[in-house]
């Protein structure tokens, strides 16, 4: 019944993402959109690092790439990643939002507008407020909202900001996030 999963994370989220990707079966039925803060001038290395243990292919998409199930799409360094009508990736070099490019808010807002109540939005550990507004839009448009349990987060600013702005559906540990995703058929 869901059409996509979108995950936002910043400081302290790398290991969580790695564990989540590792846990996904190759038959995972949805695309996984990853909007993660990263060093803007380091183009290579990140997608390779995430790919090593991932159960599904991880790609840094080109603009206008068609979004396919069973793949993870990592927002490229120094670009915003939007989801465009027609289930395509759209990239942008517009100015950073909240000092961030990629902006988690922008990825979440555009994904929410396309997938509406068929979207799962997940916010992980992070050191700023980016993503809080985006998660609110996911909720407002009927999607399912999950934050990583702040008690478990290396840095809890992002998850706490999200919970302050939105009555989220679930506060989950990494293990619970994994269990939830694995239950999606």
């Amino acid at each position, binding site marked *: 019944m869901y059409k996509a999963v979108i995950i936002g994370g910043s400081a302290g989220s790398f290991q969580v993402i790695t564990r989540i990707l590792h846990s996904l079966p190759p038959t995972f039925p949805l695309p996984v959109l990853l909007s993660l803060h990263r060093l803007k001038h380091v183009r290579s290395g990140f997608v390779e690092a995430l790919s090593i243990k991932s159960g599904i292919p991880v790609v840094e998409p080109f603009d206008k790439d068609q979004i396919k199930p069973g793949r993870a799409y990592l927002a490229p360094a120094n670009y915003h990643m939007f989801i465009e009508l027609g289930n395509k990736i*759209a990239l942008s070099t517009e100015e950073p939002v909240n000092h961030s490019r990629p902006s988690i808010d922008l990825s979440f807002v555009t994904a929410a507008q396309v997938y509406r109540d068929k979207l799962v939005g997940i916010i992980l550990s992070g050191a700023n407020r980016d993503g809080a507004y985006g998660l609110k839009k996911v909720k407002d448009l009927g999607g399912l909202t999950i934050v990583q349990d702040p008690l478990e987060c290396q840095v809890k600013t992002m998850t706490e900001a999200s919970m302050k702005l939105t009555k989220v559906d679930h506060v989950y540990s990494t293990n619970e996030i994994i269990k939830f995703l694995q239950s999606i058929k």
Partner: protein
Amino acid sequence: MIRFEIGIVDTRNVLKAILDAYGYDFKDYALTSLKRRIELFVANEGLRDIDTLISRLQQGKDYFERFLQSITPETTEMFRDPSLWRNLRDHILPDITKGTTRPKIWLAGFDSGEQLYSLAIILKEMNLLTEVQLYASYISDFTLEKIKNGTADIKQLEVNEANYSRLEGKGSFSDYYKTANGTVTLDNQLIQGVNFVKQTPAFDQGPGGVKMVLFRNQTIYFNQLLTDRSVNAMYNALVPGGYLVLGIKESLENTNSNNKFTVVNESEQIYKKKTL
């Protein structure tokens, strides 16, 4: 994060008003980013609603020019992707200037000056600045004025410096600008010989016989139709064997011109027009 949001119908109404009043057709721009640019403009201008925007746009050309400047995204950083600029300096520019008198180079994207100054600095450091003919497209008269004055954003200085040092330029980035009263002014002597081309969203005003086109991070703002049409216009402008440079996340595979070019450098998205 902006809080002002408009719908698709609102967006279409704005585009229709622009088309009717000024003949500019933005219908083939990518909807998500265009809608966002309009939202940002409305928020920054402190407008109440979309109808206010539409009536202001209809009232004056100056207001429209400012709108144009605002909705065409700026690159905001010089030498974005330093490895691409290194590649141009070390491989492509020596190749196109070899054996050709004053080859034409076209910056076909709607640049806000960053790319033009980046290219001019590299050419100057290669002692080639007067050995090429530079053409630069612009869409808004305000942007053109900004480019000609060399106005740059002081907040970007740190990024520009860092990119220049990754580029391993010959001098120091500070050779090319002055600061006064909190503003940065680039040395506009660098762009004295540039031919500026007023561009329309149809891309039909460029020069011909071009040896290299820089068209980076432009098609990301277009829908499929305009992407195909604009890349085709670049193809027509290029001489056989001429180079097309896209943004590093734009691939010709996502256009209908893929079979007309060969890949020169995949990670930098540098292509060469096939010789028939």
